[in-house]
């Protein structure tokens, strides 16, 4: 596009066109004369929206969660019970907060499940993403690299409910039939490796959740890592090759150190996404509330998945206490995610302002 084509030939925009109705013309010329102010006013209002939305989100969650937090106490973070209590009328009060008799909530199993499944996801996703990014930037070129890059971007955009459907119907049963039994059988029977042994279940559980999460965060980490690798200048790499270094040595000693901080930042961004992922995990985890998974294959739950699966049954609680407890759970998740995201951005900023994608890699 060239400038001459876009600007009106008369240059001066005010009164460039003879208007038939004078009052309309005056309004138009006024608007044009003050167009800058209109842009600033509208832009300032719009730029404030995320700040206001963020503040309102925090306020609403805290306001709903506070009574539950007072009743549940700090105990909430370490206890392993999820009992709504008697929902047939018997209501009691603790510190002035109404709740059903026998209500007792502890979130440790879902907190542990969130951390474990995200840890598995990161352990799988980081090396795979780095390897794929290497293959894309250093090995392949031309149209094939373009096609594969697009495929990764598309994976980032596939709705999580579809990945969950595939995980629950295809991947989970496949792993439970053909992969988990092999691992469980061949793992040496040492106390340290107990976690990998035992019953393998039917494909819903910790390991499947971790693998599905890995699949969902790979696009984020891989596309950021690929951008980073592409920014490494060619001269040091060529120097390394001239000294007789192999590809592996060039990658390990020159390329990786160059972008290490950026990769750590990308991995932490991926971790944040894994911690907050809801629907896909709810479909493949087994949605357990009361127990920490006994081994790698056991059914479990995560905070985000619990929010979406329990809200329906929480309506049954006439005192609204279970809904408040879910809000408290949401506060825990949001606070953890804010810390993780902030850490990621600080790392990325330190790495020299490398532009990491906001959320998905698309």
């Amino acid at each position, binding site marked *: 596009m060239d400038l001459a084509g876009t600007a009106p030939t008369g240059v001066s925009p005010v009164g460039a066109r003879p208007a038939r109705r004078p009052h309309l013309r005056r309004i138009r010329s006024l608007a044009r004369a003050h167009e800058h102010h209109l842009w600033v006013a509208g832009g300032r209002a719009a730029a404030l929206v995320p700040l206001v939305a*963020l503040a309102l989100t925090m306020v609403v969650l805290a306001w709903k969660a506070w009574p539950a937090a007072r009743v549940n106490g700090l105990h909430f973070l370490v206890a392993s019970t999820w009992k709504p209590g008697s929902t047939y009328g018997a209501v009691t009060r603790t510190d002035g907060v109404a709740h059903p008799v026998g209500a007792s909530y502890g979130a440790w199993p879902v907190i542990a499940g969130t951390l474990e499944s995200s840890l598995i996801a990161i352990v799988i996703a980081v090396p795979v993403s780095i390897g794929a990014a290497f293959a894309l930037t250093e090995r392949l070129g031309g149209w094939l690299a373009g096609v594969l890059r697009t495929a*990764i971007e598309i994976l980032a955009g596939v709705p999580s*409910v579809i990945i969950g459907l595939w995980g629950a*119907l295809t991947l989970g049963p496949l792993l439970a039939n053909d992969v988990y039994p092999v691992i469980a059988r061949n793992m040496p029977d040492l106390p340290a490796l107990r976690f990998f042994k035992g019953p393998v279940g039917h494909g819903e559980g910790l390991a499947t959740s971790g693998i599905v999460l890995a699949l969902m965060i790979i696009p984020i980490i891989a596309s950021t890592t690929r951008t980073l690798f592409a920014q490494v200048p060619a001269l040091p790499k060529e120097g390394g090759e001239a000294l007789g270094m*192999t590809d592996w040595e060039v990658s390990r000693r020159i390329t990786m150190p160059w972008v290490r901080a950026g990769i750590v930042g990308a991995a932490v961004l991926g971790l944040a996404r894994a911690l907050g992922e809801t629907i896909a995990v709810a479909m493949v985890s087994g949605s357990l509330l009361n127990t920490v998974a006994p081994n790698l294959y056991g059914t479990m739950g995560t905070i985000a998945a619990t929010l979406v699966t329990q809200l329906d049954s929480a309506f049954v609680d006439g005192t609204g206490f279970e809904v408040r407890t879910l809000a408290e759970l949401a506060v825990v998740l949001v606070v953890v995610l804010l810390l993780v995201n902030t850490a990621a951005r600080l790392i990325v900023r330190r790495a020299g302002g490398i532009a990491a994608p906001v959320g998905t890699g698309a």
Partner: protein
Amino acid sequence: MSSRRRRIADWAFRVFTVAALVAVVGPVLWVAGGVVARAIPHWRWTVLTTTTNGASGGLLNAILGTLVLMAGVLAIAGTVGVLGGVYLAELAGTGRRGRPRGGVLRSATEVLAGVPSIALGLVGYLALVVQFHWGFSLLAALLVLSVMVVPYIARGTETALRQVPTAYREGAEALGMPTGYALRTVVLRSAVPGIVNSLLIALAISGGETAPLLYTAGWYTGTPKAALFHQPIGYLTYPVWTFWDYPSNQAHYLAFDAALILLVLVLLLLVAARLVVNRSQRHAEVRQR
């Protein structure tokens, strides 16, 4: 280190990178192929023309509902996100030491992008659906979805504007254009492909979301009504999420059909977004010559 060991390490590394690439790209094909393979054998075209009846029937209500939601998100989040991005890139000005201002606003946008969608959905439910007595409603769903995608659009717009050459702004100023007029006709026009790209991606995200809609939009088996309040609305992710583990084949087929339609819709949007960027890049190369 012996040269033999070095060679083996190098070979292992090469194999690993290619295997990693396969591990990344393979699942894309597997997921897409899996959805197609489950949906096609039982596909009926009446799915597109009839509404849901219990856990069987068609998906017309869900398709129209998703399109209505997308249009609403485009109107609300599109306006807010583009204006916000324009402000951050062009109008916030520079503060002391020549640093761009608006740091707090930009940080808030990034933090908001990190809040999980289920938390936003829960807030929408607690505040809009219950406290404001809106009930499951179109407006509650639109506001939650918009808050969710505004950061993407604002970020995309800001990035697109920052890539417009400074010479364009200087040229416009030298021609005596008023600032606002130059912004609209010269700077923004050059950034249109980048902005459209971020809008299309935002539409793909909002079309594929489930968690924030379950407790704000509810679910409705009739075609969407022209009402903002007290009227739930259907959407394509609901049948997948709800019907996939129902104990009936009809329900399963409906879930697979919904997944296929959703996948096609989202892929079309993502490919369109890609094409817009590719075309603009071709333009950019021509321009530089």
